[in-house]
């Protein structure tokens, strides 16, 4: 059984704990084990913290990496932002001896050290590795009616010199997985647009304008649900639809699924086991 050190980040434990539960459950079904990373902190985030204090950002990321190094396991992240941060920091520290020494001296103060022995994976990548055959064998439910708008999000594929999950400009990894569970991935023009959540804190208005454009494009393409591997995109779509509806007098109600929720439904977990009752936008029959 393949085992990973499960890195949760902040959003999932704080606001979306059901995503952790369903992910662990679903991955187990495919023989992928996860072990918690005791003492892990915020990743920290790949934009703000990195811009404010690059070395502090590296040091905190290195500390998180060092926990998994001690466990002798590769890291599995459920969040694309954590994936981006930890992968980038891992690469920088593996390649830049000078920075590695400097960060190493910070870490030695807390009796830790970075040695560069592990890799960082994102859950979508790990699911792709399971492969279509193994997934099709376990299918319990037919999702033929699902017309899925996939939202890859930014940090799953960027920075593209670090993350080689898929083409950064036109990724198709989610569409592949969606088609493996028998659902239909839908092309829509604004597929590559950012969900908008990244600027929510500084410009909530633009954030909603972006989300609204995105939702409009999804509606025009006649999709009936949204799937994403990123908890930030998830929360933006799931909760943001309500805000868009209120602000622009719209009536969007696309059910939103995290990638392991989709897989969980397909392999026969009940809606309660998956935690669909915790979604803000209610999930009815798709």
């Amino acid at each position, binding site marked *: 059984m393949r085992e990973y050190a499960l890195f949760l980040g902040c959003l999932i434990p704080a606001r979306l704990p059901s995503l952790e539960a369903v992910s662990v459950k679903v991955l187990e079904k495919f023989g992928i084990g996860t072990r918690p990373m005791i003492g892990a902190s915020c990743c920290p985030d790949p934009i703000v913290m990195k811009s404010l204090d690059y070395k502090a950002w590296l040091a905190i990321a290195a500390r998180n990496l060092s926990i998994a190094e001690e466990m002798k396991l590769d890291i599995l992240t459920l969040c694309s932002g954590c994936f981006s941060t930890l992968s980038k920091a891992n690469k920088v520290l593996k390649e830049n001896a000078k920075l590695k020494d400097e960060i190493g001296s910070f870490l030695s103060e807390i009796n830790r050290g970075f040695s560069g022995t592990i890799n960082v994976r994102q859950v979508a990548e790990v699911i792709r590795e399971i492969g279509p055959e193994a997934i099709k064998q376990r299918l319990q439910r037919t999702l033929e009616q699902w017309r899925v708008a996939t939202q890859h999000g930014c940090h799953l594929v960027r920075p593209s010199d670090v993350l080689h999950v898929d*083409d950064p*400009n*036109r990724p198709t990894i989610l569409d592949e997985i969606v088609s493996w569970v028998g659902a239909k991935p839908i092309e*829509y*023009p*604004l597929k*590559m647009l950012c969900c908008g959540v990244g600027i929510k804190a500084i410009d909530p208005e633009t954030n909603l304008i972006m989300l609204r454009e995105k939702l409009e494009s999804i509606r025009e*393409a006649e999709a009936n649900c949204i799937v994403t591997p990123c908890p930030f995109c998830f929360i933006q779509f799931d909760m943001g639809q309500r805000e868009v509806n209120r602000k622009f007098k719209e009536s969007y109600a696309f059910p939103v699924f995290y990638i392991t929720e989709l897989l969980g439904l397909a392999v026969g977990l009940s809606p309660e086991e998956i935690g669909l009752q915790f979604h803000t936008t209610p999930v009815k029959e798709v």
Partner: protein
Amino acid sequence: MSKEEKRVGVFICHCGKNIAGGVDINALLEHAKKLTDVVFAAENRFTCSEEGQATICDAVKEHNLNRIVVVACDPTLHSATFQRCGEKAGVDPAFTELIDIRKWTMPGSPQKVDQEQALENSKRLMEQTVKRIRLKRAIPQVEVIVEPSVLVIGGGIAGVEASLDLADKGYKVFLVERLPTIGGKMALLYKVFPTNDCAPCILAPKTAYANMHPNITLLTNSEVVDVQGHVGNFQVKVLKHPRYVDEKKCTGDGICVEKCPAKAPSEYSAGMGKRKAIYIPFPQAIPRKAAIDADHCLYFQKGICRVCEKVCPTGAVNFEQKPETMELKVGSIIAATGFEEYDPSKKKEYGYGLYPNVITQFQLARLLDIDGPTKGKLLRPSDGKEPKNIMMIQCVGSRDEKANVYCSSVCCMYALKHAQIIKEMVLHDAEIYICYIDMRTPGKGFEEYYKQTRDLGVTFIRGKPNEIMEDPKTKNLIVVVEDTLLGEPVMFEADLVVLSCAIVPSQGMKQLAEMLRIELDENGFFKEAHPKLRPVETNVRGVYICGCAQGPKDIPDAIVQAKAAASCADSELRKGKIMLPEFIVKMGKTS
């Protein structure tokens, strides 16, 4: 020879400050004096200067030197200079060596190291060279009679030009072309900048002349499969693929083409039109002989039809033709294998291959051509309607760290050319936008051409689009670009997007380079012997390169190189005999 006393002279060059600024010359000089058999060592500001060479000559005479080591710059640049200088003073050229330490000292050199390291490296290289030159024996030279013939690989404009030059000088030329017709990519350009001449019209006189020239043997549908031997005496194997039409009997009347029931995508239409399975590639094709495409021919695929055989008045069709291997003996070889257009589907953000209305400039040239699939009407692929807003995107696959870093040098100009053709001759009211990083128009008459295009009302947007989306209903394209002059992101809706794709090396160049034993540069083009001073020679004597196979260039530059390569081949072969090291000749005979 081995009994003779070895007397080595070492000459260290400052190269102005290029070497002296990066290494301690005196330390190096002292080190040289300590080496075995070194009886004289000196330093000089410019060893390659007349004065520097005189120092070498004087020292040879005064100290009775019989070995010379010059510690200076790149041997490909100056070896011959110092060998000639030594020879004048009576030293066998085999015993004059030039070593390069400048690469470690010169500002801007990619291999530059610090002072200490440079001294260490230079000492080491000098020690080894002195040791080698002490142990070395002179290589006997023998006279070789050369074949007064040349193989030219590639029948594009560069290959044709080189062939004509050499044939006119009296050499027998074998012109090998992979396709059934010569003319190469130029035949597909419709018009050429900056004169807006019709490309086939200015190409045809050359290809037609090559076809009828008594000294040129055209080998179309053929590939070079093996090369042995050395300058003056290459043995080449050429595989001629069957065209299933007897070239001697075929008159090019085209009756077979008319009657052929099978269709295939046409190369001449950049995949946008159809041709028959038996075909003459384009009206001005040279040779004007039909060829059968076995992959699409009903007889070869299903065993039926043979209509062409029945209708041919001269009985030229021959389904029994087999591949044929020919052996040629030539004195030198010119590789002019040309280029290919970068495959833009690799730049996924532009949606080429996904969105029907995203095409390449090569495809646009075919659409504009009156002999093209639309007979010169500009109709967009999705619905056959005339586009009103046309957006061109420059530098697709070039000047891009994720694809090719180099500039393809012709894309700015061909985009301007197509903009002019559309504005002046095809769709006067169309709005044309060109998204560029920098407009690069450094050629004779090119800047004027750029101005003419601006005056026609073409809009230039400085910025490289990062995304193209398709409106699923209209199939129009929404192009997202940051206008870096406005400093703002802008969105355009275009009916047609045209990608100005990079020039990349053509397929098979790697195998050919291995056969010819020549080098490829970091981008996969043939590498010249020296980037500035020997642009058409290679590391193999007697093998020359020209045209886009050496790097991206426009037609006049390709012609210049073709003429240069022909001239180099002529210089080597014209005396009828050359001196070569004995071992090379022996190896050539045994292989």
